[in-house]
């Protein structure tokens, strides 16, 4: 098949040597070549990922800036979108459907309760929705450059965290406006957010792998996250609504209260709203928050790594 000539002055083939007797595999082993596109070990993968931490951060910030770069109001939409959502929910659920009943600490807490819930849930929701497109939406980057692919879902979750931190400024303003002055319990925001961030990152990695194989996930996920939102009590007190209005069994209440979105929302509300009674928190809320973070965070990472060599192919 190949009509190679050895007598050329340029020399495209090496002169005869002992290497000629080696098979390609032996030759590769001799010079330390490795099979192209093989998946590194989990430890090596983690190390590579750590080496790209600056990329992950820069990528998340770049996405954040690019997000609304074509809108006239620009970055203002980062805060305006969840606020407008909260306004809609207030009208429909708060005023029309009477969702204010049973708000922990009294009806007057409804707006801080709602806005905190919307911001916290949006954090998880957008991590999921953007996570699905983490690989499929960045194919150009994936196919052009080599980096641990987990950088993409991680930076998506990091981008959402930064967005939430911006929104927190508005949230604090609203809280102050309703007379919830800063107290020591506000410090609890830090561990709650940290757990939620790890949970979201794991979830984004799971979604990224599913979305890279089955692009149809992107069509399906909005419905799933919406169901999740209604089932977690973003715009109404979950326990009150289930027990009083739906006459639900106890186990249903416990199940829904233990779901990660409800857990992280309730923790945040408990931390920020002054007279939010601890008795309104679901049982074992802190172990649940930590457990979800560890299980989904680590599990998602391993699940994503298992398919590392297949992303962006085909």
């Amino acid at each position, binding site marked *: 098949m190949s009509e190679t000539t050895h007598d050329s002055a340029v020399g495209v083939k090496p002169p005869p040597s002992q290497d000629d007797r080696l098979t390609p595999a032996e030759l*590769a082993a001799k010079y330390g070549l490795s099979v192209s596109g093989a998946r590194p070990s989990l430890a090596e993968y983690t190390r590579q990922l750590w080496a790209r931490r600056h990329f992950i951060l820069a990528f998340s910030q*770049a996405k954040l800036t*690019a997000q609304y770069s074509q809108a006239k109001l620009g970055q203002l939409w980062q805060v305006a979108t969840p606020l407008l959502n909260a306004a809609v929910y207030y009208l429909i659920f708060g005023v029309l459907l009477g969702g204010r009943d049973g708000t922990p600490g009294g009806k007057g807490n409804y707006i801080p309760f709602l806005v905190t819930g919307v911001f916290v849930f949006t954090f998880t929701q957008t991590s999921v929705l953007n996570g699905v497109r983490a690989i499929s939406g960045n194919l*150009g980057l994936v196919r052009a450059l*080599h980096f641990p692919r987990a950088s993409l879902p991680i930076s998506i979750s990091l981008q959402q965290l930064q967005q939430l931190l911006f929104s927190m400024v508005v949230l604090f303003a609203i809280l102050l406006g309703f007379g919830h002055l800063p107290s020591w319990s506000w410090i609890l925001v830090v561990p709650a957010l940290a757990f939620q961030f790890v949970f979201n990152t794991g979830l984004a990695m799971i979604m990224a792998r599913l979305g890279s194989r089955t692009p149809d996930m992107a069509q399906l996920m909005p419905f799933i996250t919406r169901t999740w939102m209604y089932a977690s009590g973003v715009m109404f007190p979950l326990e009150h609504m289930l027990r009083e209005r739906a006459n639900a069994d106890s186990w249903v209440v416990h199940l829904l209260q233990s779901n990660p979105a409800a857990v992280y929302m309730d923790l945040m509300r408990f931390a920020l709203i002054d007279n939010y009674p601890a008795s309104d928190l679901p049982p074992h809320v802190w172990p649940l928050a930590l457990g979800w973070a560890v299980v989904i965070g680590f599990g998602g990472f391993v699940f994503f790594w298992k398919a590392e060599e297949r992303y962006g192919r*085909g």
Partner: protein
Amino acid sequence: MAVAEDTGRGAAAESATTRAEQPVARPSAPWVPTVIAEELHIVYRVYGGTKGKGSATAALNRIIRRKPGGGMREVHAVRGVSFTAYRGQAIGLIGSNGSGKSTLLKAIAGLLPAERGKVYTDGQPSLLGVNAAMMNDLTGERNVVLGGLAMGMSREEVERRYQGIVDFSGINEKGDFITLPMRTYSSGMGARLRFSIAAAKDHDVLMIDEALATGDKKFQKRSEARIRELRKEAGTVFLVSHNNKSIRDTCERVLWLEKGELRMDGPTDEVLKEYDKFTSK
């Protein structure tokens, strides 16, 4: 893509003399293999290649019957290619459209799984294609930083090389374009910036897919010079191009693929002569 074959003669002669002055840029350690392809076969599986995929009932039917795809077709794109590339070589890939050149590069880069056979590489080869889009909503400036970081440079390294990358791309020659979003760039400008970013790093194995054909002549010359530099830094460069002149100017070895098979592998002049004979038939 016919880039001034006629006016290029002067330039070709010029680079021929420079090549004569510094014969072959080969580093001290001779004949270290960097890429070994062993009986490589690549098969694409194309879904919906025969029947209309768009029909919803057909798709539903497939799901219900749990068949992997209504009309799955296999395209055998690369058939048993074997070669060994050495450190310091620049290798051109030629062949008519659809002969498997880009597929072969993707396989070397580890982006396509091999059906049979194996590719061994030294480190992680980087594939630079014209269509490898960066983030269009971001400014060129940010893309440079992101691209550099993604390739594994440190922040300081990116800062140090930033000006060099921008100067090399020539984006700012006609005004302050580097601070504009990349979606406003022309396709040529985008390709130049991408090439500049990828070429800023010393790659063990760099593969370039038609990148040189997009830039203007001045940029082509600059990138050819950069490719020669990369080879001196002990790398291996693969170049896919339909422009024989840029192959002749940059590569000393050429692989000629036809219908997925390696038809010829040898010194540039010989292979190009045969290839010209073949194409003018």
